[in-house]
């Protein structure tokens, strides 16, 4: 069994190698190879899952050491995998959703001549992501961590001929790098504190390493999580990342990669448990981001950007939950999984809409699509209900629990967080309803694209609809299934631990509140976009709206605070290097040259002058010798 774990990573990696090095001769069947290999890794995952279920709840974890990676002095890093319930959850999510999206891409990328490479990148991503969740030490996790970053870079910039795509890809990678700095510093701290950075020893000793150090580690891990999961303040890349093909947005920027931060925090639970301050920071980040993302989501007219905002906000929920400590870990992961289903479904739906509307992304130019693409409409609708937390659907179960947990944090803090979570739920309902209405209801607001083709929407091919259907099913039932006598809780508890906080409000009260705010949000959206017709061009809108359209000025801030100064700095330094550092050297050379020029005058070429100098020289020599003898 242990060896299968390694295989889990190796299979998609092999796919990536094949497809990227295979050359043109694989163009014809590249996508099938990629899909099959993804499915194969899913199958392996399933086998392992079955095996794991077959064992007792406390000895479910598997471990396989492949080889010793970096042995230098006390610094030992192994390439070793650990498969426990938490990793298992992710493995299934990643390979499952991944496979679906591979299938979807076969249809979606049909007309792209670089489809083979696209599937290669997708497989590369799967491999890296699996490595991330299967690693048994932080350094190996770091490899996966950057690996998914690379895959994301390649996929966002997949249409590199578009400068916007290239820029977005670069931005994503660099912002992630900032987060990675956090992770690497965290690892260094672990090494200097514990002399190791493998999960088990670090976590089991986190308790008594001294709060200061643990807090530092926690904060650094949080920084890493912010980078990868697009949390404030490192959130700015996610919106631009939508430049990538829609399947990418679905797989990487909704379902799996962006949730790596949640995984990291949950995995490092012991550290955060030991560092309340770090936890507080996590919670704050989560709360802020969930509102931030929601607000941005309300203002965007680009359907994908709107969904991106929502992703941000949903991950905010997860981070919030993870920050709550043992109360929240399980629910964070649970929401992560359900979110993986419905958000992926939503993105695929959006993709199929764009596919139908010849790649128009502005929702204001959609409208009334429900009768043209029923399957998309239904699946998208189910995803919509799930995300706003319609009772009974996945979102309901997971999000509700998070809000409860937030209140259960207790004290004013609990109230603030709970309030934020509730508010977030309301806004979520609002913007998702907005998306729904703008896209599928109302009258047609279609416009011909630049070639002048009237869009004639049609249902997408089955290769695209089937995954959507599957995901829709998932987003309907997953939550319920998990919550069936707390199956998911029991499943994860051994790894993450769990504790029931004492909520000031009863579960029923929270649920009721959620329902209320949900209805308010939907009603508002309906009032604004359902009843009256929607203008094709967005109205100027309030100050907040305009700010939100610009992602609440995050880019402007970065530009002013970082980019500009950086540019000035580099320009200045180039000048300094040329004029100052180099100038000093050249100056010395010049002065020497000048001096020698002066001395050259002595060499007037008259033999007799030289003779005199020799004459005098000998005289001096004699004098010297005489003096020496005299002394």
């Amino acid at each position, binding site marked *: 069994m242990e060896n299968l774990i390694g295989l889990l990573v190796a299979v998609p990696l092999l796919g990536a190698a094949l497809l990227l090095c295979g050359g043109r001769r694989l163009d014809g069947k590249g996508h099938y190879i990629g899909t099959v290999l993804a499915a194969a890794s899913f199958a392996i995952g399933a086998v392992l899952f079955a095996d794991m279920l077959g064992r007792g709840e406390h000895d479910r974890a598997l*471990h396989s050491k492949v080889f010793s990676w*970096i042995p*230098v002095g006390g610094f030992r890093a192994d*390439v070793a995998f650990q498969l426990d319930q938490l990793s298992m959850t992710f493995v299934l999510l990643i390979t499952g959703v991944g496979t679906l999206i591979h299938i979807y891409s076969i249809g979606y990328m049909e007309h792209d001549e670089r489809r083979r490479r696209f599937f290669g990148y997708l497989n590369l991503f799967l491999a890296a992501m699996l490595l991330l969740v299967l690693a048994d030490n932080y350094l190996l996790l770091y*490899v996966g961590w950057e690996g998914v970053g690379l895959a994301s870079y390649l996929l966002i910039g997949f249409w590199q001929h578009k400068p916007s795509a290239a820029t977005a*890809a670069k931005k994503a990678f660099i912002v992630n790098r900032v987060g990675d700095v956090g992770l690497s510093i965290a690892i260094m701290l672990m090494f200097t504190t514990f002399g190791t950075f493998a999960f088990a020893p670090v976590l089991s000793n986190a308790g008594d390493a*001294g709060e200061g150090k643990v807090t530092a580690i926690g904060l650094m891990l949080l920084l890493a999580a912010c980078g990868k999961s697009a949390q404030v303040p490192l959130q700015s890349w996610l919106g631009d990342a939508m430049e990538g093909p829609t399947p990418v947005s679905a797989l990487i920027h909704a379902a799996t990669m962006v949730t790596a931060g949640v995984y990291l925090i949950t995995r490092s639970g012991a550290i955060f*448990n030991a560092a309340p301050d770090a936890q507080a920071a996590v919670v704050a980040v989560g709360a802020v981001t969930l509102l931030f993302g929601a607000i941005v989501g309300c203002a965007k007219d680009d359907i994908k950007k709107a969904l991106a905002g929502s992703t941000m906000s949903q991950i905010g929920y997860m981070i919030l939950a993870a920050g709550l400590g043992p109360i929240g870990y399980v629910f964070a992961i649970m929401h992560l999984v359900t979110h993986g289903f419905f958000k992926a479904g939503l993105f695929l739906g959006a993709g199929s809409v764009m596919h139908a509307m010849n790649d128009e992304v502005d929702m204001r130019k959609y409208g009334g699509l429900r009768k043209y693409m029923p399957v998309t409409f239904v699946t998208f609708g189910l995803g919509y209900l799930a995300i706003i937390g319609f009772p009974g659907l996945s979102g309901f179960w997971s999000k509700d629990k998070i809000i409860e947990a937030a209140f259960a944090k207790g004290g004013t803090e609990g109230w603030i967080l709970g309030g934020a979570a509730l508010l977030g739920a309301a806004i979520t309902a609002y913007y998702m309803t907005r998306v729904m209405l703008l896209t599928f209801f109302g009258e047609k607001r279609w416009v011909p694209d630049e070639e002048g083709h009237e869009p004639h929407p049609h249902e997408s091919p089955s290769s695209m609809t089937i995954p959507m259907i599957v995901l829709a099913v998932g987003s309907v039932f997953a939550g319920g299934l998990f919550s069936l006598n707390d199956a998911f809780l029991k499943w994860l508890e051994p790894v993450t631990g769990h504790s029931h906080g004492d909520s000031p409000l009863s579960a029923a009260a929270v649920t009721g509140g959620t329902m209320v705010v949900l209805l308010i949000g939907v009603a508002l959206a309906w009032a604004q976009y359902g009843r009256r017709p929607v203008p094709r061009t967005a109205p100027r809108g309030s100050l907040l709206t305009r700010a939100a359209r610009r992602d609440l000025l995050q880019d402007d801030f970065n530009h002013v605070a970082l980019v500009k100064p950086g540019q000035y700095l580099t320009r200045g330094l180039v000048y300094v290097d040329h004029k100052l550092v180099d100038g000093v050297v050249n100056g010395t050379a010049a002065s020497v040259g000048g001096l020698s020029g002066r001395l050259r005058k002595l060499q007037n070429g008259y033999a007799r002058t030289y003779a005199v100098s020799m004459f005098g020289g000998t005289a001096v020599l004699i004098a010297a010798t005489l003096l020496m003898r005299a002394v």
Partner: protein
Amino acid sequence: MSFPLLTATALVPALGAVATAAVPAAQRAAAKWVALGFSLVTLALAAVVLVRFDPGGAHFQLTESHPWIKDFGVRYELGVDGIAVALIALTAVLIPFIILAGWHDADPLEGARPNRRWRPTQGFFALILMVEAMVVISFEATDVFLFYIFFEAMLIPMYFLIGGFGDRAGGRSEEETATQRSYAAVKFLLYNLAGGLIMLAAVVGLYAVTADQLGTGTFSLQEIVQARTGGHLDMATSTERLLFLGFFFAFAVKAPLWPLHTWLPNAMGESTAPVAVLITAVVDKVGTFAMLRFCLQLFPEASKWATPAILILALISIIYGALLAIGQRDIKRLIAYASISHFGFIILGIFAMTTQGQGGATLYMVNHGVSTAALMLVAGFLITRRGSRLIADYGGVQKVAPVLAGTFLIGGLATLSLPGLAPFISEFLVLVGTFSRYPVFGVIATVGIVLAALYVLILYQRTMTGPVKDEVRSMPDLRVRELVVVAPLIALLIFLGVYPKPLADIVNPAVDHTMSVVDKKDPKPDHPVTDAGWFSYSPKSEGASHGGAQHEGAHHNGAHHDGASGGAK
């Protein structure tokens, strides 16, 4: 007296240089093949060295020692430790690729007047082999004087390589290019000569000191180290510091360390890509190598004394080099500044005085050599295609020449030390090593990671992505020869990134030895964890004394159930 393997390793390329130069002017192709052949023989010999070297064995192995200049106690003394072996291997591996990559760089221009005496091609490859010979022997020399001679002699062929075979793709007028080139060559020569002369003074001083204290003056590294450990030799603090500075200055120029770096961008910018690789990947390594071998082992106390200053300079190099790389408009100069940043890391690692730092620095030397070679050579291919070094002249190459772009990207990712590729390991080791002794410096150095990403990706974005420029529209993709050059390097990068253990095993003992000479110990972790192998961690075990959990783990070493459950109850 066994077969003098090390001498042979250095001698073969030297002979190759002679043979190549002797090829009649007419057969240019023959000259190339001769050069390639000799470089491959050298590679084979280096491989033999690698095999014969026993990591567990004595510190210096395969030693040879003959008196050379008796009056001054100068000996022809060779010997390799793990670090030297690694670097010799690197050199021997890179040279064939450099030769292959420069296959057409020294062909006479079409317009050139056919002159029966004129033989640039022969000269080019002969000089490269000459450089290889000198580099190899300076890696092998354990006699300071012997080392010094070749350390300096290296400059001569390098000077001609830079000044004589410039980059034809200057995008400038002929004489402008010529002046720039000679400026670069002279700058290179003067900088390094200045360093070398100061070192010469220090070498003489060292002789004086040893002669003064040991009776007979010696240049032999082993003897001096033994005498020092044996207590027969203790230099006056001031003397030691002066000598140290003398040595360090030369190595810092060669390395190059800020602010002695300005020769590198010119040299790398003006010379052809293979020569640029030769400079940064092979020759400059001698500088960092010598810091590790001579500065630290001859003057441990002074090294410790100078450490803070040097670390700060290294930090400046890292950040400064990266920032300037971002600001460059010329591809090759950009790579040059990136190298400056990387050398900052290497020096940081060396003087962090930790096992991780120095081991990492050594691995860094090797990895940086390979990665820069990959990136620079691909850049060279790109430049020869378009005939311009300005980033602004490119765009959308990725669409026309995907393989070229791909290899370029991989080279770039290696340069920004992406995990999974070789440089990541070394860089991380250096960072950890630094952090564990000087946390602040470690944190500052990590900024370099972000900046690296910035300059590499900006370069890639501006050249490879975006709409295709008309000038590059007809650009051919990599040819077979070029693939043969790049592919193995990339393979090596990946292999060393995934499985660096063999290299690390060779290097570690040497590093430990250096550490013991400097008598520094790695700082101990504050809460050391008895390494209990893997055990299923479960948060519940926090309630119980974690010691128990550890103990459980300890005796279920590597097993994966009972320990966990025991810990869990």
